[in-house]
């Protein structure tokens, strides 16, 4: 029997994490706040993916996004009515939690992404020692041409920073966006001033991240009113307290004698250890038959919650 476990990344994981395939714009070299999902069998353990979970972003170094707004120009007596989209550089999402830097193993499918997201959200929701965040954001990579050119950057950012964004990002890491924001327009921009190619790229997600986007959408983490400053990639948002109340949890010892129906899984959150387990159904066996040492050692009591998951 194989179960999935979501836990904080440890030093020995570094080599395996480095072998994962990062999504575009993901930076996995830094282990800080990285979490991993692994498949734990009776005798085997394999890394499925990794993700960074940040608490309260932008409090040390400002973060910036473009806020997508709208203005209406209307003159009823002339029959004119124009609804105009605007972009305003802002730090609106400061203080939110963030899920970032996703990387998965070569054969990962959307189930791994769902588990990474679930693990990250449950971890944030368990709020070990910190204030539980209200909003969680996920920046998705934006549209790029085959040659790596971002149409949005080409028609907007390039006019304000003539350097090579790829080089700057390689040099400064993801924080380069904070630095380049200092060069970007501070006043609202009417989207109609941008060429069609740039307008069409706003909020569009890189096809390589479409499965991740699907997993986010399924969980209710949907595109909000912000896009990234470099590529105009969508920023998905979810209200964590509202997400948490969607599920009914039991506290205490998990039902080891229960047999799971097909397509059913048992989800266990060990809040004290900040670990999340997903035990899939396996034939007619009670879930407690799992011989995973980690699972057998899982404590019960009030710091453990569980529920049956579809």
């Amino acid at each position, binding site marked *: 029997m194989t179960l999935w476990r979501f836990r904080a990344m440890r030093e020995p994981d570094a080599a395996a994490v480095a072998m994962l395939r990062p999504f575009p714009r993901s930076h996995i070299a830094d282990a800080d706040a990285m979490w991993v999902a692994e498949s734990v069998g009776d005798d085997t353990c394999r890394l499925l993916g990794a993700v960074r979970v940040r608490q309260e972003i932008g409090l040390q170094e400002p973060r910036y996004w473009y806020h997508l707004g709208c203005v209406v120009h209307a003159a009823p007596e002339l029959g004119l009515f124009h609804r105009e989209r605007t972009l305003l550089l802002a730090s609106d999402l400061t203080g939110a939690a963030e899920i970032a830097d996703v990387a998965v193993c070569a054969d990962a499918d959307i189930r791994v992404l769902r588990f990474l997201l679930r693990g990250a959200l449950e971890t944030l929701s368990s709020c070990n020692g910190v204030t539980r965040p209200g909003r969680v954001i996920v920046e998705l990579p934006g549209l790029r041409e085959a040659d790596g050119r971002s149409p949005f950057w080409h*028609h907007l950012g390039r006019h304000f*920073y003539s350097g090579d964004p790829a080089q700057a990002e390689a040099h400064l890491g993801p924080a380069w966006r904070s*630095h380049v924001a*200092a*060069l970007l327009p501070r*006043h609202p*921009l009417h989207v109609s001033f941008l060429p069609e190619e740039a307008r069409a790229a706003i909020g569009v997600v890189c096809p390589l991240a479409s499965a991740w986007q699907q997993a986010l959408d399924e969980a209710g983490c949907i595109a909000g009113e912000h896009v990234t400053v470099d590529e105009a990639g969508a920023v998905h948002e979810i209200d964590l307290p509202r997400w948490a109340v969607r599920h009914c949890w039991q506290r205490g010892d998990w039902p080891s004698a229960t047999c799971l129906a097909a397509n059913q899984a048992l989800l266990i959150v060990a809040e004290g250890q900040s670990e999340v387990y997903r035990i899939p159904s396996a034939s007619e066996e009670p879930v407690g038959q799992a011989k995973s040492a980690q699972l057998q050692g899982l404590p019960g009591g009030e710091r453990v919650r569980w529920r049956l998951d579809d």
Partner: protein
Amino acid sequence: MNASPNDSARYVLRPCEVADLPFLERFAHASAHGITTLPPDRAALAERVERSLQSFATDDASGEEIYLFVLEDRQCNQIVGTSGIAARAGFSDRFYSYRNEYVVHRSKALRASNRIHTLHLCHDLTGVSLLTSFYIEPAYSDTLAPQLLSRGRLLFIAQFADRFADRIAAESPGLADDSGRCPFWNAVGRRFFGMDYPSVERLVGERSKSFIAELMPQSPVYVPLLPEDAQWAIGQLHPVAALPFSILLDEGFDAESYIDIFDGGPTVQERAGMLKTIARSRVVGATENLPGTCWHLAASAVRTRFRATLGIGGSVAELSPPDLDLGSRCRITEFELPQGARS
């Protein structure tokens, strides 16, 4: 420019009268580009002439006055040009312009900085006095006539300063082709109206242009985001306006700060007291000695019978012939012939 002593007092600037209407109408039809204060419509022109006559006549100036002048060639008794002044731009409404501004951004980490040209929609020039309606017959472009036509207005302002603001501005038409296609409008205004500028003007009709301006984006326009032809058109002059514009520049107007929000043409402005004709002007008696070798602009002190001329002579009485009565307390200013002028 040709300026012979025989041309002394040949041209006279005076208030436009109803009888001048056919000339105005001809000028309005001939000036295809950008002179919205000369509508090619007889009734509208007649109304403007009437308003102008009232403005010259009233002792109770409120700021809504417009003053229309015509230029007479006394050699052939023809009206050869027109010009005007609006006492207060916008008057009871707002007068919109784009103000050129430059913002500098810097990022230490990226070791980069930029200097970005922006256009800020503003009302800075609301209430300033506006020079308008300039038109000179093409055959007179290379004579003293346009000099008097343009600068004579400034003498009028100096002579009746309490009727005008202490700041003067003038709009000049921007780049547009023969069909009215205007690169600046196409890049900016058209996005909000979906029609070309001549169509908008027709649609708006007699309404104030501020009505259009209020539908324009209120936030600054970042110039680097505009198409190249629109960027290039910012502050560029339509060729038909080159002559009056050069006179304004020679007067000392600043042409760098503001542009027209519709066609991007330059809107010049300056404090009245800094303009050459006004700053150098003084009130003289009819017999006061003047340097006989200098050209002078001279203007009468009676508002309703205002006359201005350009002449050369040892006194006001000499530089203007007897039939051109400039009165006893006329205002004069020395006029320098532009470089290259033939005297």
